[in-house]
């Protein structure tokens, strides 16, 4: 079962890479990379079990953490880019309920 789950996660990682390559917008790419990162966390956890030494989950935790830091970093930096030509925020449609 673990092997099956590992394979599934691997497949999803490949799908994420495809999305990261295809884009089209910057945010799609970031989203895909973020997803890739979270799937890596799962993969590492699974791999530990596959290898028979499940104690090394610390690595997975660090992954989760670093992934978050990079996503925030990317966003902060892309903010810095676009802030110059940043108009008013796109108004959402308000619905009367």
């Amino acid at each position, binding site marked *: 079962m673990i092997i099956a789950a590992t394979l599934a996660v691997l497949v999803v990682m490949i799908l994420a890479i495809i999305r990261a390559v295809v884009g089209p917008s910057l945010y799609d790419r970031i989203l895909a990379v973020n997803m890739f990162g979270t799937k890596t966390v799962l993969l590492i956890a699974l791999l530990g079990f596959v*290898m028979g*030494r499940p*104690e*090394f989950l610390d690595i997975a935790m660090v992954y989760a953490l670093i992934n978050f830091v990079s996503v925030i970093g990317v966003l902060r930096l892309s903010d810095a880019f676009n802030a110059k030509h940043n108009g008013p925020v796109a108004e959402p449609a308000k619905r009367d309920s």
Partner: protein
Amino acid sequence: MTMILGLYNYWIVIVLMMIGFYIIIAHGHLIKKIVGLNIFQISVFIFYISLGKVDGGTAPIWQEGIILYSNPLPHVLILTAIVVGIATTALGLALTVRIKEAYGSVNEDEIQAMDNQVMASQEKEPQQC
């Protein structure tokens, strides 16, 4: 056939290495060069780590009842090398930032052209400093 099965791992690593190497040489964009350098180095790391793997072995952290471990020495070497890699990357990027400030470009050809221009102008008018 056994050869292919026994060595495929190394070949993949070599292909990756060469991709990185190609990026370093062929791309004019300085940041891309550094990315290439990174890929090149990481591939070498993979190569080292593959050396240390033993079939059926596990991570070299001692535990009651486990006899077969992978070789820890390549791991140590690569830990060192990873740190060296990030050091180089950081320095290279710092240089890139400064180059951008000084030249207004991060393209190898443009920078080289600017330098050549400076040199040429110095040759023509030796009086000017």
